């Protein structure tokens, strides 16, 4: 199927959403409204993005950075509000996502694996940013919740003279693991459970499966690397925000009833 998808095709596929909505309504799942919103939102967002990308790819490559910045900004707001109990969660998210994107994209473009053209950098960047966003949220939330739940043990460690980093180490490790696990699992089962997006796209566009596979491998390894990088940065910054410089838990964690 190399023929482009027409607007009529899009309209017809909405029929599947209608089926889903009817099921939701009949079985009293209560998701009809959400499905409607999701359908309209995805339509508007993607059509708008389509226009923007068409413009950027059509000789306005200088705007690539702007597009990436908007993506990083949205990822930062999303992750920051997920982990809003962590002080300065937004700042942590901004730094972690940016660091992961710069490091991974930089590596791939400097080595010439990915061309610097907007057509390559934007979609690749978007995948890194989205993976880094998920990892950052998971790490921040897990670390906060674990330290709150294990306050007694953390403070026992502090009382024995450990630094905040030493006292937090067991939960810091667990949070990094928690944040990176989805990328690792995804990489393990790739192709067996689902043909991933980048590969599906290339195959639909008529590329040979091997060509698609090579790109997909690069994408998977890049996402693993980006996710690891985001986890490391987010973990480090989160530990710093959950303790005071005097190696005390911050007040909101100290006063949690345990």
């Amino acid at each position, binding site marked *: 199927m190399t023929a482009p998808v027409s607007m009529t095709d899009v309209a017809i596929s909405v029929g599947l959403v209608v089926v889903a909505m009817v099921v939701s309504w009949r079985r009293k799942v209560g998701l009809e409204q959400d499905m409607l919103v999701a359908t309209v939102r995805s339509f508007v967002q993607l059509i708008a993005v389509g226009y923007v990308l068409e413009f950027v790819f059509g000789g306005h490559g200088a705007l690539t950075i702007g597009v990436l910045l908007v993506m990083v900004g949205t990822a930062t707001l999303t992750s920051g509000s997920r982990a809003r109990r962590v002080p300065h969660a937004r700042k942590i998210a901004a730094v972690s996502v940016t660091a992961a994107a710069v490091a991974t994209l930089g590596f791939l473009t400097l080595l010439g694996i990915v061309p610097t053209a907007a057509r390559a950098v934007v979609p690749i960047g978007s995948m890194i940013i989205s993976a880094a966003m998920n990892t950052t949220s998971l790490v921040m939330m897990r670390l906060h919740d674990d330290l709150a739940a294990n306050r*007694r*043990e953390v*403070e*026992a*460690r*502090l*009382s*024995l*003279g450990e*630094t905040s980093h030493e006292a937090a180490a067991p939960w810091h490790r667990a949070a990094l693991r928690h944040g990176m696990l989805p990328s690792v699992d995804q990489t393990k089962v790739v192709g067996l459970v689902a043909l991933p997006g980048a590969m599906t796209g290339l195959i639909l566009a008529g590329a040979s499966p091997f060509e698609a596979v090579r790109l997909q491998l690069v994408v998977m390894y890049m996402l693993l690397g980006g996710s690891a990088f985001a986890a490391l940065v987010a973990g480090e910054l989160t530990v710093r925000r959950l303790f005071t410089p*005097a*190696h*005390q*838990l911050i007040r909101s964690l*100290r*006063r949690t009833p345990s």
Partner: protein
Amino acid sequence: MVDRFEYADVRVDGDDGPIVAGFSARVPREGLTVIVGPSGAGKTTLLRLLNRLDDPDGGAVRYEGRDVREYDVLELRRRVQLVGQVPVTFPGTVADNLGDIDAAALLARVGLHVPLTREADRLSVGEAQRLALARALGRGPEALALDEPTSALDTASKGGIERLVRQLADDGLTVVMVTHEPRHASELADHVIEVAPLRREDP
């Protein structure tokens, strides 16, 4: 001689109003000082100021005549060992919990007669409390701050821990113990600091 600890007009704020306000008291170097009062009077908070798990919002806490905030906090915590109400054991054996120090001598000092290879999470609460005390003593402290060290224990183990606390004070350590049991103040203590709640506790 300068006091071991001094609370000078200390205030600690909670989420809705102060937990402790205008509190002043001295803890001498010698013997066992008991801080006694009903629950909700801020006793635990007062204890946590001694090794800086908490800091006061007003006034000052002094150690050896100097504001605790002037010390390197890690050094202060080594010298002032705080043991919490519910004993915390770390994963691993009794020996793992004690680290590279003379474990056998420490266990003897706190009267804990279990093999060093015993998994710490298999100790009874009373044994775990002794292990926590041994771990604290292993850091070579000058002062011990104990938060209701017997409240999590059954009557049989209570007496043993009380005698141990008394013994540690007699050995020359400054011991500060928080308790809600008036009996501890009348029977165990060399010095008593009474605290009263600032306001009625919410039920």
